[in-house]
């Protein structure tokens, strides 16, 4: 029963239309929008604050929400769905030759110092290679060697054993087994019995761990 003289010349859009307007403006704006700005952009007679409020309630519990940013408003993804906004791609890469050789030496000769790895490989071991193996949790630091300089040693981890399907590092086949399996086709160098030497080395080193 409003006084007819109070009515504006044109009716303001109905509340649902006003809510639609706020929705569209908030969606398309490149920055959060203040209520005053909403009001200025909506047709005469609209109540931006009220429309905003009902829009905010409508989005409660949905995938996006109407949130306050300072004294302005914006539509944002619901916080619990943030995980959808990141896409993880897993890339499988072969370990580098240097890394796999270093790993093999640690596995067969553990505990093993860096100097020993270098001697066996015949080249310097880069810091990155060891870091990578440590990061993969395939090797870890062992006890320090009780020799001058007390160098750190490396040993393989349980994670390593799990990954390679081994119960124990001693299960690693020796050179004789490798040759029997056809992995080594060459003849032994004259005057050397590498498989024996390796087996010996290996036994000795694993004693520490036992």
């Amino acid at each position, binding site marked *: 029963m409003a006084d007819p003289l109070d009515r504006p010349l044109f009716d303001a859009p109905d509340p649902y239309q006003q809510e639609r307007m706020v929705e569209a403006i908030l969606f398309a704006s490149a920055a959060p929008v203040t209520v005053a700005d909403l009001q200025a952009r909506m047709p005469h007679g609209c109540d931006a604050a009220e429309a905003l409020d009902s829009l905010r309630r409508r989005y409660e519990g949905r995938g996006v929400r109407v949130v306050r940013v300072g004294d302005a408003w914006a539509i944002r993804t619901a916080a619990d769905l943030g995980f959808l906004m990141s896409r993880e791609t897993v890339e499988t890469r072969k370990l580098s030759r240097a890394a796999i050789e270093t790993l093999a030496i640690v596995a067969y000769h553990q505990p093993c110092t860096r100097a020993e790895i270098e001697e066996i490989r015949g080249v310097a071991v880069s810091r990155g290679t060891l870091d990578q193996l440590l990061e993969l949790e395939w090797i870890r630091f062992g006890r320090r060697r009780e020799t001058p300089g007390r160098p750190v040693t490396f040993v393989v981890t349980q994670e390593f054993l799990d990954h390679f399907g081994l119960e124990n590092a001693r299960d*690693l086949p020796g050179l004789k087994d490798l040759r029997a399996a056809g992995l080594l086709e*060459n003849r032994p160098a004259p005057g050397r019995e590498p498989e024996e030497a390796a087996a010996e080395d290996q036994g000795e080193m694993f004693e520490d761990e036992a």
Partner: protein
Amino acid sequence: MADAVSPAEPDVAERMAAEALIVDVDGFEGPLDLLLTLSRTQKVDLRQISVLALARQYLDFVDRAKVLRIELAADYLVMAAWLAFLKSRLLLPPDPEEDGPSGEEMAAHLAFQLERLEAMRNAAAQLMARDRKGRDFFARGLPEQVERRRRVRHTAGLMDLMQAYARIRTRDEFRPYAMDRDRVMTMEEALERMRELIGYAGSWTDLSTWMPDGWTGDPVLRRSATASHFAASLELVKAGWIEIRQGESFAPIEVRRRNG
């Protein structure tokens, strides 16, 4: 009031159009565009257009342009020539001696081209009149970045591990075949040496005396140097620089510069 004005309107519009045609040749996008504009003055559906009348209109237009000394681009003149040809084909009885498309076929094709151009213009207008993004509807103003994380997983199998170990432990035996370059003299080296020395070999000289210092003691080095120098000699013979001879089997091989 509307009644009073409307009868005069078409005349005015037509006259203005005719003037525009003359003055504004550059406003047309080529002869086909001009033909389409001219065809509209026929006020019929493009499918019922009189190509003959259109050809006349075009040729008139070109004549008027000439009178007004308006420079017409070459393609307008090419079209005029073609339309004149078409006109004659349409007006004269078909010559049974002449092959090639009939006037009717050519006219039908021109009508098709005009209709197709008109259709594309209408389609373009309809397209541009659609609700458009950034004008009538809008995309997200504040897009959220999708963060892309790349995780690298390194893998190696037991076989890789064992093969790596085997490779290290048996490195010396595994050595792939390779030439020991420092103990070999290549033919190129020998050739280069001989090219420099050949000038001095005016008479028959034993090739074995050409071996460089340091390559005669060690049998391995001597063999390599001898072989490469012999091969180089043959190359030089082939090139006509030197002559080569050997008295009998296993006798010294002798070379000398070729004269002339």
